[in-house]
C-alpha cells in the first residue's frame, strides 16, 4: 500500500508539540515499514524553507529547550527514504524562491501532483 501524506496545515501547534505532528507521524510510520511520500501544499510549503528558527521561547521561568526544527525533520524524512515534495504553484503564490528550499525537496507542478495522487493507493490530506 502506497500512501501519499499531503500536508497543508502549517505551524499548527508546532511550538507546543515541538514538532509538526504529521511529519512526526510520518517518521513513526516509516519506522514500521510504511511506504510513504510527503507532499507539502498550501501554507505547508513554507516548511521547506531553509533558515526557520523557532527557538528562544520562554514563559516565566520556563524555557523551551527543544524547539521544533522542521527543516531538520524534513531532511530526516528524506534520509529515511521518504521523498518530500512541494507543490510549486503554492510556493509561487507565497513568493518563495526555489533556491531557499531545503536540499532534496522535489518540486511538483500541479499536474505532477495530480499524477502522484493517481499513483498512490491512499491519499491522506492533513
Amino acid at each position, binding site marked *: 500500500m502506497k500512501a501519499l501524506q499531503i500536508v497543508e496545515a502549517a505551524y499548527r501547534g508546532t511550538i507546543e508539540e515541538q514538532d509538526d505532528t504529521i511529519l512526526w507521524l510520518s517518521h513513526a510510520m516509516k519506522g514500521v515499514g510504511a511506504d510513504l511520500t510527503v507532499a507539502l501544499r498550501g501554507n505547508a510549503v513554507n516548511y521547506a524553507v531553509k533558515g526557520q528558527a523557532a527557538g528562544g521561547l520562554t514563559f516565566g521561568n520556563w524555557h523551551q529547550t527543544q524547539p521544533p526544527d522542521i527543516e531538520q525533520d524534513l531532511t530526516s524524512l528524506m534520509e529515511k527514504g521518504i521523498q518530500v515534495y512541494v507543490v510549486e504553484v503554492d510556493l509561487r503564490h507565497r513568493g518563495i524562491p526555489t533556491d531557499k528550499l531545503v536540499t532534496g525537496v522535489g518540486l511538483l507542478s500541479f499536474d505532477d501532483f495530480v499524477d502522484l495522487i493517481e499513483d498512490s493507493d*491512499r491519499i491522506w490530506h492533513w
Partner: protein
Amino acid sequence: MTDTPTLTFAFMDPPFETGRTATFFRLLDICARRGYHIKVFAYEGAVALPFSQQKPHANAVHGRDASEENHPLPKDWIAALTEEAERNGGSLNWVNCGLCVDERGVNAAIDGVSRGSPADFWKLAAASTNSLVIPTR
C-alpha cells in the same frame, strides 16, 4: 459472499470545538448500522473524545436542568456506536494515540478504548478496505 468492509478513520479534533466531530460520528454511525468493522485512530485532540470523566451540565439560558439538557458527551456516542456495530455483526475498535493521551492527561478512557501509536494507524489502514483522514485545522 461479500466480505464485510473494514474502514479505518484517523481523526484529530477534540470534543466540542468543530463541526467535523459530528460529521465524523455520523460516518461512524452509518458504518455501525451496516455492521462494518470500524477502526478509529484518534490522534492529538481526538484522544479526549473517549475521556471517561466527561460530565453533562444544565443549561440555565434555556431553563433546562442537566437531565433535560441531555448534553451530548462523545464518550457516550462511542459507547453507543460500539454497541450498535456489535449488534449488527460488526465492531468498533478505537485506538488512542498514547503519547497524545499522556500530554493531555486524558488517560481515563471508557472501557474498550485501547492505547496505541502511529504504527497502529499504518497497520490498521493497511489491513482495511479503505481509510479516511479527517484532519484538524
